[in-house]
Every structure is written in C-alpha cells, then in structure tokens.
C-alpha cells in the first residue's frame, strides 16, 4: 500500500508544481514544455525497457514526427497544432511498423544497435539531402493555429504548455493501463521467458511489435510537440546523442514505472539547463558517471529512491506506534 501511495503522491506533487510553475516563475515555461515533450519520448523508451530491450535509436521516431510537423506546417502555410500532433504520431507509428517488423526479430544488443543504425540512416539522410530537408540548418516550423485560432506567441506558449501537460498525463495513464493489461504483461514476459510465451501460443515478436509501435507513437507525439515548441527542426533531432539522452533519462527517472519518464525528464532538463554552464565540457562524462551510479546502486531510479524513502518513513511511523 505504502509504495502505491508514495508513488501517487509523488506524481500529484509534481503535477501541482507543474501547474503553478509557469505562473510563479514564467521564465521556466519554455523549459518545462520541452521537458514535457521529452518525457513522452522517454515514456516510449520505458515501454521497451519493460520487455528488457533498450533502443539506442528512438530519436528516429522523434525526428520523423518533428520533420513531419515541419513539412505539414510549411505546406499549409502555418498549419494546425492538432494536425501536427496527429501526423507526428501517425508517421512515427507507420515507420515503426515497417522498421519494427524487422527489428523485433532481434534482442538485446542487436535490438539496440539496429535501432541505432536505423536512426543513423535517417540522420545522414537529413544531413545530406539538404535540398529536401534543409541539411544541418534544418527547417523552421511555423507557429500553427490552435483549433483554427491564430494566437500571439505568449498565448500560444501558455496553451502549448498546459496542453502538453494534459497530453503527458493522458499518455502516462494510457501507457500504465497498457502495461498492466494482458498484452502489456506479455511485453514484460518477453524479458523473462520467451520460450514459455511461445508455448502459450503467443508470438513474442508480435507482442514486441505492439510495444514497439506504441513506443514509437509516444516518441512521435513528443517529437511533434518539441518541433512545434522550438519552431525549428534540425538533424540533431535524430542524432544518437538524443536517443542516448532518452535512455539516460529513463534509467535516471526509473524504468520500472511510467512516472519515471516525467520525473526523470524534469530533473534532467533542470539540471542540464542550470548545470550546463559549469559542466558543458564534461556533460557526457557526468551523464555516464550518473548512469553507472544509478545502475549499480539505485536500479529503480529517482522514483525508486523516493519510494524507498517513503517506505522507510512509513515503516518508522508504524514502528513508532
């Protein structure tokens, strides 16, 4: 009971903070929007981690959706935010279905590296075919209308932030539901025993493919959101560093629970934004070290730590009574 409660309270606390943050400290609003967009992609990575698989190339789906939003917006002379998001999700899912049919035949390091290779193909396409993609300068993304209304920048950013918050909460709830469902549990079963899954009459590849498409759709939603928030897309969206960042945040937040995506992304963006000035040259070194420490000493990430603290406290309280 205590663990569920402390999990819930952590989420409630964070959501409350998020709701008031842009009002109390308006300067954080853009940063928070970007963190929310990233948390969606991280959530996608967490879905695959449930099956014991790690992808070093999920920035692919992030970038596909982002460029999709850019192309759509430019071709419509502005575009509509809902269309941006829907297109992003659809494009990422469609590509994931095709790439996934191939990649779900592999596990572990093959799974990770083949994803990486797929993302590098797209990255170098974005870089080299500049007459389509704008090359390394990228493409600008015009500010879209919101439900048909053209908004000023400030208004637009407010709506974007609160809209993103709603989207993230919805995605967290849906993903949590999925993971506790029979299909989601079978995803987790891939990690422990595929032979038995096969002998239950279930194709583990199809189960993984379902998870793969879901994870890509989440990355797509995040990518389209990010592109809209930043107003520009660059090949860096597809770069392996970004994929690695998603994985890092997932482990940092805690890959065992969907909340880890949100907690991890917020913590990461804040630390990066304010610590980058001190540690810009050794940022990856810091990431690597933290990753090692988390894996070796706190395998459940921030969410796990807060739970452990929560449990410790309630146990003490019980002992005191």
């Amino acid at each position, binding site marked *: 009971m205590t663990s569920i409660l402390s999990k819930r309270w952590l989420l409630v606390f964070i959501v409350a903070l998020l709701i008031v943050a842009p009002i109390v400290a308006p300067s954080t609003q853009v940063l928070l929007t970007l963190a929310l967009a990233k948390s969606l992609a991280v959530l996608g990575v967490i879905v695959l981690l449930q099956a014991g698989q790690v992808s070093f190339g999920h920035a692919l789906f992030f970038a596909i959706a982002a460029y999709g939003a850019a192309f759509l917006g430019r071709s419509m002379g502005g575009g509509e935010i809902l269309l941006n998001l829907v297109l992003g999700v659809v494009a990422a899912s469609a590509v994931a279905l095709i790439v996934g049919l191939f990649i779900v035949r592999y596990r572990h390091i093959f799974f990770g590296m083949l994803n990486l290779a797929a993302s590098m193909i797209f990255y170098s396409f974005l870089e080299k075919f500049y007459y389509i993609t704008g090359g390394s300068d990228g493409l600008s993304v015009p500010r879209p209308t919101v439900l048909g209304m053209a908004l000023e920048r400030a208004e637009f950013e407010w709506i974007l932030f609160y809209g993103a918050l709603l989207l993230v909460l919805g995605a967290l709830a849906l993903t949590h539901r999925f993971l506790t469902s*029979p299909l989601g549990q079978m995803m987790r079963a891939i990690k422990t025993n595929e032979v038995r899954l096969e002998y239950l009459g279930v194709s583990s590849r199809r189960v993984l493919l379902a998870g793969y498409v879901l994870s890509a759709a989440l990355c797509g939603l995040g990518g389209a959101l990010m592109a809209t928030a930043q107003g520009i897309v660059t090949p860096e969206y597809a770069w392996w560093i970004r994929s690695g960042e998603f994985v890092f945040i997932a482990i940092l937040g805690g890959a065992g629970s969907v909340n880890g995506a949100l907690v991890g992304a917020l913590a990461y963006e804040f630390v990066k934004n304010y610590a980058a000035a001190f540690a810009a040259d050794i940022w990856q070194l810091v990431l690597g070290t933290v990753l090692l420490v988390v894996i070796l000493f706190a395998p459940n990430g921030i969410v796990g730590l807060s739970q452990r603290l929560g449990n410790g406290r309630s146990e003490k309280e019980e002992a005191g009574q």
Partner: protein
Amino acid sequence: MSETVLLQAKDLEIRFGGVIAASGINIEIMEHKNLAIIGPNGAGKTTFLNMCTGYLKPHAGKIFFDGEDVTGIAPRKLVRKGVARAFQIPQLFTEHTVLENMLMAGAAQARNWAPLTRIDRIAQRGEMVHMLEMIKCAHLADRLVSELPEGQRKLIDIALALALKPRLLFMDEPTSGVASSEKFEVLEIISGALQESKVTAVFVEHDMGIVERFADEVAVWNRGQVLFRGAPDDILKHPDVIRDVIGEEL
C-alpha cells in the same frame, strides 16, 4: 473408449552434428491413454518432445496431429491446435506472480489481449484461480515465481500448459527436482488435474514406480529409436528393458 490416434510420428530423424538423436521413430499416441517414455540419458526422449511440440524440425519424417500434418510448424501454432508442453526445467515468467503467470496463460488461450484492461480483472480469472486450486497451489497465487522452490514451480509449469485446454500434454520429467518422498503426492495432484481436464498425457519419467502407477502404456527409447512399447506390466518386466534401462536407473 474409442481408439483415436491423437498424434502419429512417422520415420522421424534428426542429427546434431554427428550425433543421431532420432533415427526412424515411429509411434502412435492414442487419445486418453497416458504414455510414459522411459530410456537412458541421451536416448533422445527430450528431442522427441522437442520435435512433437515444434521446437525442433525433424530432418526427415512426418508428424501428424489429429490426422493433420504438423511437421515443423511453430510451437505457438501447435499450441493453438491443442498440443501443450511442460518442461524439465520449469519455463515460467519469474518476475510475475503465480496468478499473473496463470492469467497470461488464460488470456493467451482465450486470445484476450484487452490492451486497456488490468490483467487481474480479465474474464478468465475465475477459471485460472480454479486451476490453481486443482493443483493445490491456490495459496501461492500472490507469490513471485522466483521465490518458489523447484517442486512448486514444476506444478505451476504444468498448470500453465493445462490452462491452454490442450488435448495432448507433453511433460518432460514432471517429478525431477521433487523430493522422492513427495513424488507420488505430486503426481497424484497432476493426474487428478489431467483427469478433470480430460487431457491425454505423454511424460518422460525415470522413476519406474511412478511409471507403473500412472501410465497406461510405456514406450522404451534408446539411441534415438523406440525399442518396445506396451502395457507397463509387460514392458517393465522385459529382461532387455531391465538390463538396458531399469538397471541403469538403479
């Protein structure tokens, strides 16, 4: 009782490198007659199970299930046709609870993917709880599989196979890893469950006492071939069997 041939193996052959693990296996498995497979280690008993359940594809020969050619089709497709399997080393989802393991089997059997329903609220729950009661493991429902001793894991492994409502169940040494004092009790439980589910069982077994007590027929394996087949009383008294198989067991 009608004499239906449930599974037929014809001239099965398979080699691993230079080792011949099956060399011309011919056998018919009759519905509602539990068959025990005995034989020395390395005789190719598990390989036979692997071929019959689709894990290995024979290099030659055919397998028919219920009259249909099923040679070389994937385990999951055979499962859908009614062939289930329990393993020598239990194959379970170790990071799930016992009940969750069963619920996954129940959901798989019913093709109930329900991507937004919590697994412990699916329609098959009642049936699965009953299945656990049948194997006398209801009290373990909420335990993590990784915490259970080997004997209980073997029972859960068999229950997972039974949850698929098969017509034919292969069991690879159902009592290995079970303390010898408990072997009969465990097999009592299993055979009770088998009878309730009306499943035909084929099981590999080294304990002749158990074979005598629970098998309707016995087949003797050696060097990738079926040497003898018949009623337990006849086979277990056959001098060759005593010399080559039972002697070694003692």
